[in-house]
């Protein structure tokens, strides 16, 4: 009974915290009469959200599907690259340092280049989302494949297992929890990529909305846009978290006994 109560408290804890923060924010804004042009109160953000909800919805939908396309490409490329790197020592040695160097580059810096290549619009946004999010997927697949017990490999090799058999029967299933774990991280990064790109290289999307609202001094609207991106990223994160728990239950067995 006690542990059930604790579980309940844990489930509601983030909501309570969120509510407390909003309340505090509102109190501070009201008490000190902070200008709505500098730092809008939650109430102001809400009224702006209601007022412009059709506009926000349009931009949000654009940002959402652009992100999902970029994320989809990231999954395909990340899995393929991760598979190659994780299954061959030579490929690992050759590709990994370069990939790390590439990952260290700020992806926002690519946006102007992408604009030159693809023009203003969905092209740069999709590609930025892809560039920023494929790396964790690739690394995690590669790690899962590369960490194979030598003894198990002996057991299979003595039976005449080819490298491919070992990868398919052991390596790939083993890397699945890593893969789903990386999707959670990658989807949030993909939203960052899309939004950043839209800020300079699009006429639609939440990123564009943020910039145009900001330049029109409509801070309430800009904040409403931010909240929407945050909410979308959060929902997708929870979705992949749910899928992860469902599909790779064997890797989360520790939490079952509690």
């Amino acid at each position: 009974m006690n542990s059930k109560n604790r579980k309940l408290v844990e489930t509601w804890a983030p909501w309570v915290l969120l509510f407390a923060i909003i309340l505090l924010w509102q109190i501070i804004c009201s008490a000190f009469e902070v200008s709505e042009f500098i730092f809008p109160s939650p109430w102001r953000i809400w009224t702006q959200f209601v007022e412009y909800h059709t506009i926000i919805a349009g931009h949000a939908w654009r940002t959402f599907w652009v992100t999902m396309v970029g994320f989809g490409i990231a999954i395909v490329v990340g899995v393929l690259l991760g598979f190659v790197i994780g299954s061959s020592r030579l490929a690992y040695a050759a590709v990994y340092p370069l990939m790390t160097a590439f990952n260290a580059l700020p992806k926002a810096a690519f946006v102007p280049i992408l604009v030159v290549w693809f023009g203003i619009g969905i092209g740069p946004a999709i590609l930025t989302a892809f560039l920023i999010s494929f790396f964790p997927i690739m690394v995690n697949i590669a790690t899962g494949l590369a960490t194979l017990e030598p003894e198990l490999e002996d057991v299979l090799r003595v039976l005449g297992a080819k490298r491919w058999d070992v990868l398919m029967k052991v390596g790939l299933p083993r890397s699945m929890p890593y893969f789903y774990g990386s999707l959670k991280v990658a989807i949030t990064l993909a939203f960052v990529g899309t939004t950043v790109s839209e800020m300079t290289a699009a006429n639609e999307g939440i990123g564009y909305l943020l910039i145009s609202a900001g330049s029109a001094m409509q801070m309430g609207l800009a904040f409403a846009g931010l909240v929407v991106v945050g909410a979308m990223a959060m929902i997708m994160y929870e979705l992949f978290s749910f899928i992860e728990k469902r599909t790779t239950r064997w890797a989360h067995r520790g939490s079952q006994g509690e």
Partner: protein
Amino acid sequence: MSTSNADNYFVDFRDVWLAYNDELLAQNHFAVEGINLQVKKGEFIAIVGPSGCGKSTFMKLTTGLKMPSMGKILIDGQPVTGPLKISGMAFQAPSLLPWRTTVDNVLLPLEIVEPYRSTFKQKHKEYEERARKLLQKVGLGGYEDKFPWQLSGGMQQRASICRALIHEPKMLLLDEPFGALDAFTREELWCILRDLWTEQQFNVILVTHDLRESVFLADTVYVMSKSPGRFVVRREIDLPRPRELELTYTKEFTDLVLELRSHIGAIRSTTSAATAIPQ
């Protein structure tokens, strides 16, 4: 003379030396050296020795996962040229796949080794039945559809041995299979292994550093010395079969264990006297 003998032995090592790579070979630094070993068909042998004496290397040589630098290995009359599918292996770590149920773990080798591989889909029912029978035989009835992480260490090890035996190998290689288990579970598994072997009469090569285990189970015990690994003593265990656990408390049993122990002791003191040799 020696060629006619080859037919009689199942495992036949003739002056086998192994260095792990060319560099070590050039330095004359061998992991195992001068191994001569003749094992009859269906014989149960145990190899004991201090850790790091090349026992595991010996297993890799026997299964064809490593080729000797010098010398010749014949298994079942055939020279070893590559991985030997007629062998099954189990190690100290059960290394079962956590996303497969116990029965699916046991079936894994059949998905890989011929002739089962090509018929795995059609005869799945039959193979699964076989795996379940084998699991029941080692006392895992009722746990076939559980996941490995739901089993105790001893149960996992039983499943691991089943996986090694599912393709009915002619030779079972065990590398300290009971090393991580508690004393009671270990004795229980000795008996299970004894019964499986008595029933199916495959060859067993058991690598262990438990002397009681080796004496209880094996027909012949070999004592291996440390770096370089070589056999220093061969001892036939002529205790009558079937052997029961009570036997391990008799005088003749403990005498045998003590005798083997004295050889190990002798090895240890000589190596510690000769520590000038780099590892």
